[in-house]
Every structure is written in structure tokens, then in C-alpha cells.
């Protein structure tokens, strides 16, 4: 995804933004976009399925039964069984949970840190130079490399992946947030607020942050899919969740060894990742189209 282009697109809207809740027509316009509705309902269903996994999963995702190993999809096991006879549908449901949590934590924590850094960088110019230099350095590390390094330092596991995803989110968000905040800084109400003696804290929070939040939010929805993708790739490489924990990327990697005997073991978790990321990306695109009329075609 091109952050460069996104930056321009999003920064352009910053001055036109009038706050999150002022956009009364947002939902109505989203509802008119059929692709957006489809993506939103798919993502909604996936999230619900993940949340309620313990109640709807037909089997225990960790229960092994070697007599049922590597069965193809059937009525008893909709997605078949894996090499140790575990029910893949149940594991996909639990795996989706872990995968979504990874993505959400990465985006929320990384978004919060990046947003604060970017807004502070726009408000305090001198500090901003230093912050943006730090951000440039952070951008010099591709997410997968950060993941590899974190796994090497802390040992492979979900925490290594989460740290990597947060670090991967921070610099891009900081740049977008700074761009949006610089636009807002130029507005008259900022000057007016300062003239009537509003404190720095109130200016930053009530004037600056609230006016940048929707831009940051759109950017984060666009990043969400990418973050999930990175998380699952790290899982696939064995840097994330460790067996027997179900995580979609790791499940695909485990199925790789049985690709020629039972292709469904690797294919089904991979498909699940694809569907989640696709729905997230489509929804992100729809949000951007609605919130950023400049990019609408």
C-alpha cells in the first residue's frame, strides 16, 4: 500500500474535516456502496464467529485423535481434520480469534502511539523535528525484519509478533497524523483558541486531536488488513504463536508438510486469512472513499 499516496489524499482532507460526528451522511453513504456492505457484513460475521468461538466451535480445537487424522472435509468435519486429527473448523475459529487480536492490538496500540507522536510533532515544531527523524529511522525497518529481530531477542511467540506489529504501525500513523495535524494547525480556530487563552493541553486534545481522529481512523482501517497479513506471515515463519495454540498463519505452516497428502490442512487457514484481509481492505477503501471525496471516482 502506498503510504505516500495515502498521505497526500488524507492530508488533503484534514482541513475540510469538521469532526467525526458531524459526518451525518457517512453511514448512509456507506450503505449505498454494495461492496462496502458486503465487506462489512463479512467482517462482522467473522468477528462474531471469533468472539463466540468457544460456543460455536463443534469440537475442542486441541483434541487430537490420530484415528481421524488428515480427513478431507465431510459432514462431520466441515473443514476436515489436520495431521493429528484435530477439527480444522474449530481450529480456524480459534485461530481467527488470535489473528484478529494480533491485528487489533497492533493497530490500536500502534495507532495510539503513532497518533500522539504525530500530533505532538505538529504542535511542538522543535520537538517535531526530532520525532519525525525517529520516525524516519523506524521506517527503515521492514515489519517482517522487526518481527524476526523481536523473535530472536524475546523468543518466538505472540508477544514478539505484537511488538513487531506495533512498531510497524507507529511510523506510518505518525506521519499521517502529523500531516493531518499540520493542516488543522493552519486553521483560524486554532489561532482563535490560542488568542482567548486556551491551554496547550486543551488545544492539543479538543482542537487538534478531535479534528484529526477521523483521518487517523481511516488510515488505520486501511492498515488493519496489512497488519493482519504481516502477523500471519510471521506466524507462518514460526515466529509467532507456538503449537498447539491455533493461529491461522502457523496452521498454514503446519499444513505445508502435508500439502501433497491433505492440501486442505494448509489451504483452509490460508483462505481464512485471505477472506479476513480482503474484507478489511475493501471496508477500508470504502471508508476512505466516503471520508475523502477527493479520491472518489
Amino acid at each position: 500500500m502506498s503510504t505516500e499516496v495515502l498521505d497526500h489524499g488524507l492530508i488533503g482532507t484534514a482541513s475540510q474535516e469538521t469532526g467525526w460526528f458531524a459526518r451525518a451522511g457517512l453511514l448512509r453513504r456507506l450503505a449505498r456502496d454494495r461492496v462496502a456492505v458486503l465487506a462489512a457484513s463479512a467482517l462482522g460475521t467473522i468477528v462474531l464467529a471469533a468472539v463466540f468461538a468457544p460456543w460455536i466451535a463443534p469440537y475442542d480445537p486441541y483434541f487430537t485423535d490420530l484415528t481421524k487424522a488428515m480427513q478431507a472435509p465431510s459432514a462431520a468435519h466441515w473443514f476436515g481434520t489436520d495431521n493429528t486429527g484435530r477439527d480444522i473448523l474449530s481450529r480456524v475459529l480459534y485461530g481467527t480469534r488470535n489473528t484478529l487480536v494480533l491485528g487489533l492490538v497492533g493497530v490500536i496500540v500502534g495507532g495510539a502511539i503513532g497518533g500522539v507522536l504525530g500530533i505532538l510533532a505538529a504542535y511542538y515544531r522543535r520537538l517535531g523535528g526530532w520525532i519525525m527523524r525517529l520516525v524516519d529511522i523506524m521506517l527503515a525497518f521492514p515489519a517482517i525484519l522487526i518481527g524476526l529481530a523481536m523473535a530472536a531477542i524475546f523468543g518466538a511467540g505472540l508477544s514478539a509478533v505484537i511488538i513487531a506489529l506495533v512498531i510497524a504501525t507507529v511510523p506510518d500513523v505518525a506521519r499521517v497524523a502529523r500531516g493531518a495535524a499540520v493542516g488543522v494547525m493552519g486553521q483560524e480556530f486554532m489561532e482563535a483558541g490560542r488568542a482567548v487563552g486556551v491551554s496547550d493541553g486543551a488545544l492539543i486534545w479538543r482542537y487538534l486531536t478531535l479534528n484529526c481522529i477521523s483521518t487517523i481512523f481511516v488510515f488505520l482501517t486501511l492498515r488493519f488488513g496489512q497488519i493482519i497479513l504481516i502477523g500471519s506471515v510471521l506466524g507462518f515463519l514460526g515466529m509467532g504463536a507456538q503449537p498447539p495454540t491455533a493461529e491461522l498463519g502457523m496452521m498454514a505452516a503446519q499444513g505445508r508438510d502435508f500439502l501433497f497428502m491433505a492440501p486442505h490442512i494448509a489451504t483452509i487457514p490460508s483462505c481464512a486469512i485471505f477472506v479476513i484481509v480482503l474484507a478489511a481492505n475493501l471496508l477500508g477503501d470504502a471508508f476512505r472513499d466516503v471520508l475523502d471525496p477527493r479520491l472518489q471516482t
Partner: protein
Amino acid sequence: MARQIVHRLLISIPALIGVLFLCFCLLQVVPADPAMVIAGPDAKPETIAAIRQELGLDRSIPVQFFEYILRVMRGDLGRSIISNKKVIEELALTIGPTIELMVGAMLLAVPIGIGLGTLAAVNRGSLTDRFIMAISVAGVSMPVFFIGLMLIQYVGFRWALLPFTGRTGPVWDGGLPSLILPALTLGLVLIGPIARLTRTAVLEVLGADFVRTARAKGLRETVVIVHHALRNALIPVVTLIGLQAAFLLGGAVVTETMFSWPGVGRLAVGAIVSSDFPTAQGAIMILAIAFLTINLLVDVLYVYLDPRVQST
């Protein structure tokens, strides 16, 4: 132009120090004491102490970091704990295949991506456009390993068309068949983003005055699109390809692991899994430096392509 490049090089230095520091940390914060790992489980305390001294582990962290930088500059990255080979030698063996894989993927992805993007832009709103954009969104959303698994399963195994494990040799020495599937896996991931951005860039340019002028002059549509629109649209596309370097590197790590491709990425993953820290830091360092270099090259190319950047 030279000034710009020098400026860019100067900016890269803190990033490079960051990379080195991260790699240094890798050797420091490890849960296991490297001296104990090297000495083995039954080693005497004196042996461990001797190894600690030999490795310089008894000195303060800043001193160790400084010494580490000096060693790296001399090309001394230590020895692999597992194979006892010099890390720099292992890297020298693996860097070639990685570059080969990346170049192969780019050669596939860039022309196809630019072609599809232009086609979509020219036929904006049509079925072709929608189809191409749908494919590219799907491509952006697909994990690299999914494409790899499919290619291995069908092209490699079922239809037995191409080899899917290892590398038989350099491209010029009969290695081309073994390169195709890994390069295709990595390249397919890049086509989507490149096509998407090319479309946006071409659309923007198509509305520009100089394109209208070109049309008004009565030039043929192909000439207008290829010579006037596409050439100007390429500037953001080049930047994007630079930004994709991160993707490319990450994807290369996965692709190499899947296809047993003897590259740096596979070396890094293998080293991390087996707690071979000297090899892991060396491999991660090379990958990060490769990333910085690609970005630097893209910036230079950008200045070259867009004369406006030179004057500012």
C-alpha cells in the same frame, strides 16, 4: 543532484546505526549466555570465563557496541554457533540467490503491474477496469504463502511442470526453471499494488493540461498514453516500487523458506529457530542494509525522473 544524494546518504546514517544497534542488541539480550552455549553443557567455569573474555563479553555495553561496529566494518560478523563457519562467508553465499529472486520477481511484477494499471485507467469505469481492480485488491489481500502453496501444489507437484525445492544454480547456468516458481510467488504479490497505483497516477495525468494539448495536436491515442501520460505517471510508481521494497524483503523471507531457496531470508529464519544468534544478527543486518540501499536508489532514480525535485 549530487547534493541531494549526499543529503540522502547522511539521513541514512542514523538509520544504519539503528540497524547496527538492533543487531548488537540481538547478541546482548539473548536469554542464553553465548559463552555458555559455545562452551557446551559440561564446560568448567574457567572455560566459560575464558570464552567470555575472548568474546569481549566482560566489558561495558557502550564499549562492546563500539567494538562491534569496528568489527562489522572489518567484515567480522562472528561465527555461526551451529556450523562454526564465518557468518560473513555464509552471507556471501546466500546474498546472490536472494538478489536473483528479488530481481526475478520485479522483472515479472513491474511490467505486468504497470500494463494492467494503465489498461484499467484508460478504460476507466469499464468492465476491464473493474476486473483488473478486483484482481489487484484480491492480490493485495493474499498472504504470500497462500500463492506459494498453490503454485507448489499445482504447478510443481500435480502437473510437475517446474521444480519447487532448492536452487539448481545461477540463472545463466541452467538455474532458470528453479527460479520461476519462487519469483512468480513473490512477483504476484507486487502486481496488485503496482497496478493500483499506476491506475491512480495515469488517471491523474490523463486529466492534465499537457495531455489535453497532446490530444488537441491530433496525436494518436497510443502516443498520448505511452509517451505523455505513462511517462509522467511513472514518478509515483517508482516511489511505490521503493516502498514495496519492504514487502519484497518480507516476501522474500517467506518465499525462500517455502521453496528451500538458499537465500538470506531462509538463513535468518533458520538461525532464529535454532538460536544461532551470530548468524541471525548478520542476516538481519544484511536484509536491513539491503532495504536502506533500495530506498536510496529509488530516491536517486526519483530525482532523475522528476526534474522538478532537482531544482528545489
